[in-house]
């Protein structure tokens, strides 16, 4: 009969147990971090969707203006004083609206809405014409995930139509 070797009869040493414990802890720390990253990605997705809706809703509001108001800097500034929707995203986004005559621009009217709701007129176009304008709406914000700068924007060509 073979005598059991020394290594076969000894138990787990403290250092072996500790190494195992560290590996297990590292594994779970990784999984928990992965879980946390998933949660942060969801938050980032929500931000992106909110930004998209912000831009689209503002474009809708501008599209709905009478053309005479659309080429009036004061009217646009008044419109922009109100956030396009009730989402809290507006409190962290900087919104810029640029309006220029299309297809040949003669200066650009640019207004900026800050996260606190203040609207400033950055520039006023020399002439926006009477028929067709290009309207650019852009929002910029700092992502919660990674603190990266993000933007979302859209462009519309709006003609001088009439309302009912």
């Amino acid at each position, binding site marked *: 009969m073979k005598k059991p070797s020394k290594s076969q009869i000894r138990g787990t040493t403290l250092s072996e147990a500790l190494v195992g414990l560290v590996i297990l802890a590292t594994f779970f720390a990784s999984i928990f971090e992965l879980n946390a990253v998933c949660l942060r990605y969801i938050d980032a997705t929500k931000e992106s969707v909110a930004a998209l809706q912000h831009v*689209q809703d503002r474009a809708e509001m501008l599209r709905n203006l009478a053309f005479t108001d659309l080429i009036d800097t004061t009217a646009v500034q008044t419109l922009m004083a109100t956030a396009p929707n009730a989402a809290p995203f507006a409190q962290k986004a900087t919104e810029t609206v640029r309006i220029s005559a299309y297809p040949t621009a003669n200066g650009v009217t640019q207004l900026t809405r800050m996260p606190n709701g203040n609207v400033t007129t950055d520039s006023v176009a020399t002439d926006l014409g009477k028929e067709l304008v290009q309207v650019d709406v852009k929002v910029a914000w700092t992502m919660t995930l990674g603190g990266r700068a993000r933007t979302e924007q859209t462009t519309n060509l709006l003609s001088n139509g009439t*309302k*009912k």
Partner: protein
Amino acid sequence: MKLKLSRKRFAFTLPEMSIALAASSVILGATLTSSTSLQKSFNAIDNYYGTHMQQVRIVDYLSRDVKRGLVVTTSADLQTVTITVPNYIIQAGDAEAVINPALVGTPRTPTMVYTPSGWQVNYGNATSTVVYSINGMSILRSENGTVTTIASSTDQLVPLTTDVELSNTEYTKTSITFQPIFTSGGAVASRSGTTVYSTAYLRNKRRG
């Protein structure tokens, strides 16, 4: 042959066993608890993301119909939206289809009329009725009786649509929420944090 017993081959003592059992119980308990909570969390994340996408789909559908709508009415409880849209597509039984059945399902050619306030595009007098409603946990879109499930999940997707008519235009403001399945300390996560907002103007109302 009789083996010589060594002290190193003795079994564990009761205190050693108790300590090992306690330590392994703690580790196993932590492992099981962690695994369970992680699985719940991943499930909640998956559920949240999936439902969030459904919110976006509802906004897309509703905005498209509202933008081309002639009339939008919202029920008093803000849970049902009825939209009247022009018949953009030729349907069986329409005058064009009677003359040429091959035209069924094709876009209708509009007529343009010059009015005192400008050009007006018309798609005929016939209209379709689109209804958005909540049925249990689903949001349904019904167009002339044909029902499409826009969102279907175990969550309560609740669109609140307000139809606002101004002196010169009309628009709807929509907010869609759902109840996430996240919990924290036994408390259910807030519904308000899931809100997606949308605004859509009735473009056909702006015609001359």
